[in-house]
C-alpha cells in the first residue's frame, strides 16, 4: 500500500514534468511503465550510471517540496535523458549547441 502510493506520486510527478516538457518543446513524449524500488541511492543510481557509463554526464535535477500542515518533505527528481533525446529537447528549446 505505502509503496504503491509512493509509486503513484512519483508517476504523477514524473508525468507532470514530462507533460510540461512536451508542451514547452512541442515534442510528443511517451512514458513507459514505471517501476520503483527503495534502497541505497548509489545502488539505484548504478542502473542509469551503467547505461550512461560511456555516453553522457548530463542530468536534469529538479528539487521539490511537499507540505501538509506541519509536516513537510523535500525530494529530488532526477531526469536523465538519453544523449539523442537531450539534443532534441535542447534543439526544440532553441538551446542547441
Amino acid at each position, binding site marked *: 500500500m505505502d509503496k504503491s502510493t509512493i509509486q503513484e506520486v512519483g508517476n504523477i510527478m514524473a508525468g507532470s514534468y514530462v507533460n510540461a516538457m512536451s508542451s514547452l518543446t512541442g515534442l510528443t513524449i511517451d512514458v513507459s*511503465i514505471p517501476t520503483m524500488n527503495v534502497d541505497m541511492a548509489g*545502488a*539505484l543510481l548504478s542502473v542509469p550510471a551503467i547505461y550512461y557509463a560511456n555516453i553522457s554526464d548530463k542530468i536534469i535535477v529538479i528539487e521539490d517540496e511537499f507540505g501538509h500542515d506541519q509536516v513537510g518533505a523535500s525530494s529530488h527528481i532526477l531526469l536523465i535523458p538519453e544523449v539523442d533525446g537531450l539534443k532534441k529537447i535542447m534543439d526544440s528549446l532553441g538551446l542547441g549547441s
Partner: protein
Amino acid sequence: MSKTIVVGISDYNIAIGGDILVTYALGSCVGICLYDPVAKIAGLSHIMLPTITEFSDSRFAAQYGKYADTAIELLMQKMINSGAVKIRIRAKIAGGAQMFAPINNANIAGIGERNVIAVKKELARLKIPIVAEDTGKNYGRTLYIGSDDGLMRIKSVNKGEWVY
C-alpha cells in the same frame, strides 16, 4: 589500527596489514574480492559492465577498472606485485542485482546477471576458484573485505547482513 580503504565505481585496490577494503552500494555492479590467506593480501574490484569490447566507446579513453574482463586481471596483478601468490588466491563475489523490474532496453536488460556471468567467466579464465557468492536478487549491497581474515561482509538496507 586498521584503516578503511574506499573502492569507488570502476575502481580496484588492495589492502594489507589488517586494513579493510569497502565498496558502497553495489546495485547491478559486481564486487570481486580476491584474497591470499598466507600473504594476507586482500583485493577488491567494483566493475560496472561485462566486457570492454561490447561496452566501451572508442571516443573516450578506456577505463580498465570498469569491465569484468579487464579489471580482475589488473587487480590480481597488483596483488602479485605486492607479494601474493596466484595459486593461493581465492575469490568471493557479490552484487549483480536487478534493481528495477525488467525494462525494455535490450542493451542493458539483465545487466546485473550478465555482469555476474562475465565475472565468473573471467575468474575461470584466470583459474581463480570462487569460494563464496552473494549475487542477484533485487537489493543493493555494501561490501567489506578485511585483509587479516579475508572475510567478506555484506550490508543491505532492511534485508540484513551476512559474512562469507
